[in-house]
């Protein structure tokens, strides 16, 4: 059995995942971040995107986090997400719609405040779509 670490994924509303994993992949502000057990302590900001973790049976699980923080200790990884969900719970149609809406808002912008929010929404919707596509690609391979 591979060496494992404890992983918790929590959002402000609920605990999404709690268990062991041998590898965690997240999207931090500086790019993709792969964590294996006995990683050096690390605190990083998360970008909207998928969080992938591989359990001790080499199965991959996908989650979606809309930003937040990740804390890495040698044997404990904690993902403090703003909102998190299992990737298969994501709604592709809704994400497409949100993206379209945000793009429209950016095109005919009215105020700075709206523009900033629309941009944040666009980033989030795009990240959700990317997560869905990654998940589908993996499924196609498997």
């Amino acid at each position, binding site marked *: 059995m591979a060496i494992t670490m404890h992983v*918790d994924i929590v959002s*402000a*509303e609920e605990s999404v995942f709690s268990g062991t994993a041998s590898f965690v992949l997240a999207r931090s*502000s500086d790019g993709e971040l792969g964590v294996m057990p006995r990683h050096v302590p*690390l*605190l990083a900001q998360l970008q909207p995107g998928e969080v992938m973790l591989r359990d001790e049976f080499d199965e991959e699980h996908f989650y979606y986090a809309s930003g937040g923080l990740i804390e890495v200790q040698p044997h404990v990884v904690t993902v*403090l997400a703003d909102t998190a969900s299992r990737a298969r719970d994501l709604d592709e149609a809704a994400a497409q719609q949100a993206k379209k809406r945000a793009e429209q808002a950016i095109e005919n912008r009215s105020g700075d405040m709206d523009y900033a929010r629309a941009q944040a929404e666009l980033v989030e919707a795009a990240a959700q779509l990317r997560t869905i596509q990654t998940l589908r690609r993996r499924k196609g391979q498997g």
Partner: protein
Amino acid sequence: MSAGKEIRTKIRSIQNTRKITNAMEMVAASKMRKAQQRMDQARPYADKIRQVIRHLAHANPEYRHSYLEAREVRRVGYIVVSSDRGLCGGLNNNLFRQLVRSMKAQEEAGIGVDVCTIGSRASQFFGRWGGNLVAETSQIGDRPNLQDVVGPIQTMLERFDNGDIDELRVCYNTFVNAMTQRPTEETILPLPQQEEAETSHGWDYVYEPSAPEVLDDLLRRYVESVIYQSVVENIACEQAARMVAMKAASDNADKLIDELQLAYNKARQAAITTELTEIISGAAAV
């Protein structure tokens, strides 16, 4: 039979009141269950972020965030969490009483006090009682969002950053069980110091993108999560207290109705007896 009629109207009005208190009791019971659920759901996040903060206190960061440094206290900021509506027993009053005691102690020590209220009961109270009210929010409803409480938190954090206040506390009711709610006062900022931090190994986190940015983000989230948790907990307390208060009100109404019913029966019987006596004595006289 004028006395009898008066009593009957009174009984009917108390019966109507009892119907209302009974309904409110049942509504509060079901709302309490939901509020408790939300409280439990918010708990993992609060626990985890507390854990991260504890780790952080053990580390030896090169960059010391101002939220981690205790400074001389000249002014204290209170965030008071109360309910929006009344009819929930002594819940709010117990909290305010404890708060006033603590504030008086501060003032005697020459320490100024700023207040920020969540929920309309607290802002009403401090409007009457006095005190330097710097921010308020109300009508957050039964299902609060984090966004609803960010405003007052922002104000208080800004004051802390500017050095207007040197300590930030939160006051709310902790949910012990459905019958017991305990008024609680907690210091949020500066974070409690860890004594053994000196003896631990000199390790530090790797920060991405940079220590100030990440710590700023983390500590802000920490404060938000503590306040959010206390708001959610206070709502559960409010519903529990209302349930108990309404149960007591219904019981009192029952007792009153019983007493009035007895008085009514007696009055009716007395009237009948008088009438009979009058008829009989009238017949005897003829």
